[in-house]
């Protein structure tokens, strides 16, 4: 059996869990295994159980304990350990979200195992599963096999499976009370920092800088290009970490998600956490001195070379084009 973890906040589904359901269904079909879903639940998760039961699954297990109303790594690990021990799944699958990466390795370690995390695809070879992980910040793919006995803990990267491909069906919902054990951390409510001063989600054109810009002084070069285009300036994480630009300019999984008509990436390598924030842009341009940089994999237009050579020419040409 394959057990799929469903992530939610107060009963509101994190849609990426549908990708995990699709992954479970695909893998289950190929390996001839049934698929069940598990939802850790506090007092009230509303219609979530029924919502998940609308997919083709053997059953939906609602693991209930008031202590699970708000996520904690201890609460989730303790209760899911119990569920896994009674259900004996061969695979435990999840989408590789920030929450999952927080507790999945701990859960796996309870069983003397580790997770194979952030996989982008899999294949089977003679009943054995080979998982592909992207390593070296996106520059290299690595095929891995898992040794030893089940259960195997596997997480898939966002986009590895399509949520709309999760097959609809009719499953039974089983609610069981579960022990949540000792919880050694006390969570406050999640919050958003004071509303971001700049909302880049509505930008038509974005010029984004990465570590290739080298220094704080050079940021104004990128600003000149942004001004020429009439674009907004944005950045990858290291630029905001260094406080060269404020954090509300950060694009990516921890920052803003944008989809402008045009996205120009200057000296950005293209790590997955950056790509998820901008991959739906209309046209993507990448300028990078490394021809192998992963950003080129999603770019429509690419220039291999030094951004400091390119920027002045671009500024001139944009001005000419605009007349």
């Amino acid at each position, binding site marked *: 059996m394959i057990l799929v973890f469903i992530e939610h906040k107060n009963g509101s589904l994190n849609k990426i869990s549908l990708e995990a359901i699709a992954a479970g269904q695909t893998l289950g079909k190929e390996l001839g295994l049934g698929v069940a879903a598990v939802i850790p639940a506090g007092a009230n998760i509303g219609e979530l159980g029924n919502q998940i039961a609308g997919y083709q699954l053997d059953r939906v297990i609602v693991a209930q304990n008031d202590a699970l109303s708000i996520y904690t790594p201890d609460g989730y690990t303790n209760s899911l350990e119990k569920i896994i021990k009674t259900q004996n799944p061969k695979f435990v699958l999840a989408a590789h979200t920030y929450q999952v990466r927080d507790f999945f390795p701990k859960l796996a370690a309870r069983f003397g195992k580790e997770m194979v995390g952030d996989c982008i695809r899999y294949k089977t070879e003679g009943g054995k599963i080979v998982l592909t992980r992207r390593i070296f910040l996106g520059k290299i793919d690595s095929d891995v096999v898992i040794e030893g006995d089940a259960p195997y803990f596997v997480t898939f990267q966002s986009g590895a499976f399509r949520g709309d491909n999760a097959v609809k069906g009719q499953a039974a919902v089983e609610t069981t009370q579960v022990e949540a054990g000792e919880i050694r951390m006390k969570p406050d409510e*999640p919050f958003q920092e004071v509303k971001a001063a700049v909302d880049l989600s509505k930008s038509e054109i974005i010029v984004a800088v990465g570590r290739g810009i080298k220094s704080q002084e050079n940021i104004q070069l990128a600003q000149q290009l942004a001004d020429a285009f009439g674009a907004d300036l944005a950045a990858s994480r290291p630029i905001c970490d260094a406080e060269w630009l404020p954090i509300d300019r950060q694009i990516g999984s921890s920052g803003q998600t944008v989809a402008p008509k045009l996205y120009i990436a200057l000296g950005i390598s293209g790590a997955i956490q950056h790509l998820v924030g901008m991959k739906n842009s209309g046209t993507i341009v990448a300028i990078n001195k490394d021809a192998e940089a992963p950003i080129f*994999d999603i770019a429509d237009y690419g220039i291999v070379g030094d951004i400091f050579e*390119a920027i002045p020419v671009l500024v001139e040409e944009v001005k000419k084009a605009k007349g």
Partner: protein
Amino acid sequence: MKQVANKDAVLRIGKDEKWIDETDTAYETNESDGYALEEALRMKEAVGAGEVVVCSLGPQRVKTVIKDALARGADRAIHIVVDEVNRMSPFQIAKTISDAISDEKADLVMSGLQSDDNGYGQTGVILAELLGIPHATLVIEVDRSSADGAALRLKRELESGWYQWFTYQLPALLTIQSGISQIRYASLKGIMAAKKKEIKEISPSAETQSFDSKQKIEKVYFPLKMKQTQMLGAGDVKKGAVELIEKLRAEVRIF
């Protein structure tokens, strides 16, 4: 703290296709590990007492990481000497480190969030479980004034600009997210002082080496290109820039 290949290094696939060719690789300290050290040093300064111990597992070359950490202000170090660190799985690494540090009875254990080479993102979390202490990942702020020896308040990063504060029982393990604070440089005085600091070398036990539930790398290779990218300029950046604006005008109709 882990030593990893330099981010700007040109990577080549090794002969056995199981790892990169490390013949003349330049190395650096894993990015988030530098932030973890900084946070540990700031914690010690805030509390005004205690000791910061650095632990690194890897071949002799990781001494560079250790010495740099000592120069920045760590008090002493433990070097677990292992030649083929990249053949070890995260559970194996965590178990080996756990065996090496459990007697230290640390009040706080800090690791980086994720290694820039293998990117397992789990060594710290498994280590916490093996040490029997709670953990928090993606820690982006620590309320150092809250540290009273029994509890600690910390802020975790959630997705898309959300955050959450937690109060943790100590001892605890935190995996530190890049950007938590600004990293100090080693001073000349620090570099001199580091020469006298202790680096204890230890070898891992055979038991950790025989862990049999590990993920094993079968093959590494460059990703297949998924998208047809129009490469412009053919090596001439200026020409590429001119072509680009022409394309944006004619094909994308930006202007």
